[in-house]
Each structure stands twice: as C-alpha cells, then as structure tokens.
C-alpha cells in the first residue's frame, strides 16, 4: 500500500535556487536562511520518500495564457527544468512516476476534481527550488516527483477550501494504490511577498507566523480565509500560500487520524523580495 507519510511546506523563491547553484549559501546575506534549512535537510536525508507530490504554480514558463488550468497533474516520465528568461537552472531532470500519477488522476477526477492532465511540460523554480532546498546539488534527485500545478496567477484562482479538499482527495487516491510506496506531499510558494506596484516589498511577519500556527493546528478554519485577506495582509504574491493547504489536506488527521507531528519550522526575511518559510509535518495515521 502506498502511504502519505509527511507533508513539507516551503517557499520557492528563485534567488534561493541561484544561491545554491552559484555556491553563495555561506555569504552573509544567505547564511541565516540556509542555517535554518539544515535541520530540514537532515530530516530529508533520513526520510527520503519514494515519491513527492510537489504542489506549486507555473510562473509563465509552461502554460502561458493559451491554457490556464486550475489544477494540472504531471503524468510524464520526465520533466525538464525551464529556461525562465535567465537560462535554465543547472539541476537534474525531474523524474516522474507515471503509474502513481495515472492512479491519482483516475481517483481524484472520479472524486469530482476536474484535473487537467499534462505531459511533456517543463517545470520552473516553483518545482526545482524546493527540491534544492531539501536535497542541495545531487547528480540525480533522490526520489520521483509528481508535479501538481495550481493556478495562482490569473484570477479567479481556487479557494483555500477547494485546495484543502483536493489534498484530502489526493490522500484517498494514494491510500488506494497497491504498490508499497512512501509518498510525501509538498506545498510550496509564499510566504508574504509582493512583487508588483507601489506596494511591492510588503512583508507581514506577524501574519506569516499566525499562518504557520493555523496551518498546523486548525487547517479547516484556515481554509475559509478569503483570497483578499491573503493579498491585503500577505501581499499580492503571498496568495501562493493557498497551495500549502493542498498538502495539509492530505494529512490523516483530516480523515479521522491523529494530528501530525511538527518536526521543523523555519522563517527568515528576506530572500530577495520574500519572506521565506519552511514547515515539516510527519503524518500519524
């Protein structure tokens, strides 16, 4: 039986990837950020899954405005790192898990989530930076990855409630997959940041830290937060945090199990224009 054993929540700021790619992590600007990632890296090394379902958004590198799927699942055997305008990151090809992806697609769509299924699609920093945060610079990523793209760029975007419920449906899907697989689900993006307009540079540490607490302790209530609150309090691009709810929805406490165990939490300002956050929860089913 496949099982979701943990969820990870992580910012996916491009500059974090640049710092790793260019060996800058020990520079004064980056050191506090990367020191805070050490416990997460130790945990990741000791808890390497077979597959990560990696929830993120495309940033105008894969879909464009010709196709704007709300939820899109990556079905392929491989996904190449995208050139986002600065050249592609020098990171390994992301290797998928087509049979588990097919099973999830079948189950989740029958569970009333109308996923778009995609093959032959590049993955951008939203997918590759969290992998680098956890696994640094390996020759190959240590696990398979099923990318799950969420539209958080063009409104209307899915509600927090819808994201949480999608996570629950993904858990049901994984639970019914026959092969023995250790699966993690990662929700990425955020935390507070605004990349546009005269209000750019907004950071709200108090709100971010309350968001962490509610994510751990009361996700059902957090799922009711309106988009406008994310934007007003956490900045226009802070809306990415709704994607964390997909990962949280897949924890077994929301299906009658025990609450997850918080393993690690890290918060640092700034990474470029962003408040970087990380949270690791182990499932207790």
């Amino acid at each position, binding site marked *: 039986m496949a099982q979701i054993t943990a969820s990870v929540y992580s910012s996916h700021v491009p500059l974090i990837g640049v710092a790793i790619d260019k060996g800058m992590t020990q520079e004064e600007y980056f050191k506090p950020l990367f020191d805070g990632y050490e416990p997460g890296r130790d945990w990741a090394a000791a808890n390497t899954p077979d597959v990560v379902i990696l929830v993120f958004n495309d940033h105008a590198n894969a879909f464009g405005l010709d196709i704007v799927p709300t939820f899109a699942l990556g079905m392929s055997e491989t996904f190449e790192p995208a050139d*986002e305008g600065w050249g592609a990151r020098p990171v390994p090809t992301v290797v998928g898990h087509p049979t588990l992806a097919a099973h999830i697609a079948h189950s989740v769509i029958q569970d009333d989530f109308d996923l778009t299924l995609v093959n032959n699609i590049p993955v951008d920093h939203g997918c590759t930076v969290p992998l680098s945060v956890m696994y640094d610079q390996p020759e190959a990523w240590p696990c398979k990855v099923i990318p799950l793209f969420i539209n958080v760029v063009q409104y209307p975007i899915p509600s927090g409630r819808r994201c949480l419920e999608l996570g629950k449906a993904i858990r049901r899907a994984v639970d019914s997959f026959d092969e023995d697989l250790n699966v993690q689900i990662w929700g990425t993006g955020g935390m507070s940041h605004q990349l546009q*307009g005269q209000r750019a540079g*907004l950071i709200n540490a108090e709100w971010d830290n309350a968001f962490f607490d509610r994510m751990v302790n009361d996700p059902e209530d957090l799922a009711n937060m309106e988009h406008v609150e994310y934007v007003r309090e956490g900045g226009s691009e802070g809306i990415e945090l709704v994607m964390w709810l997909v990962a949280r929805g897949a924890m077994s406490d929301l299906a009658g199990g025990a609450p997850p165990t918080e393993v690690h939490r890290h918060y640092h300002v700034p990474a470029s224009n962003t408040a970087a956050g990380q949270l690791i929860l182990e499932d207790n089913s």
Partner: protein
Amino acid sequence: MGLDKPYLDIPGTTIFDTDQAALGYHLNMFAMSLKDAENRELFAADQDAYLDKWPMTEDQKQAVRDRDFNRILELGGNIYYCAKIGATDGLNYVQIVSSMTENDAEAHRQMMIDGGRSPEGNRYLHEWADGDPAARKERGEH
C-alpha cells in the same frame, strides 16, 4: 451587475484577473516569448522590430520601451510574464520590483533586509488618500 472584486480596495496593487488578462493577452504572450534565448537575442538586437511582431496597443509597446512596469501592469501585464523583459535586460527581481516603488534597487534591497514594507498604512486605498509612498517620500515623511 458587475462581479465582486474586493481586491480593488488594496492600494498599489493590480490583481491579474480575467479582465486584465483579456487586456494584456498579446502583451503577456510577447513577454513570455522571451523565455527562449533566441527571442531574447532578437528583442535585444532590434526592440521595435520585435515588438511590431505582436498585435499590442501602441500604449503597451511604449510602456515596454519605457520599462515602466507599473504602466505595463495597468495595461494588462502580469509580473511573472513581464519580468522576462527585465531578464532580457540582465536585471534581477529586486531590480525589476524596486523600479515600481519609491526606492532604487539598493534602497529596496536594504528595506527588505530591514524586514520589508510594513502592512501598516498600506492595506486600504483610503490610507493612501494623502499620497502613495513615493509622494510621502517626496514630502520627507518617514
């Protein structure tokens, strides 16, 4: 009856909704084309010729020539698409983002190191009735 857009009450912020996306379709697809290295070279070599290949409005083209990112967003651009214009110029995100604010890149970088822009006084349009951050800075406030 119009659609409910509660986000219009947030100052200095343009939400990229379906109306903005309709305005900015060609502008954004032009910008997205710059994810390909050969297109970045073509654009850098002859900006006007490259822009003329896209059915954008003259205002949109001028905003691109001016690298006026606030105007680009107003005319339907989205930041993730249009940041690739900055990438083609060799700019990073702090440089692109700061160009929309009262600060230059160095001051913006320092503001971020100091904890970023506070949400205090920056949540509602009425809080900017006396002027946006640039106007406040002009008057020597804060």
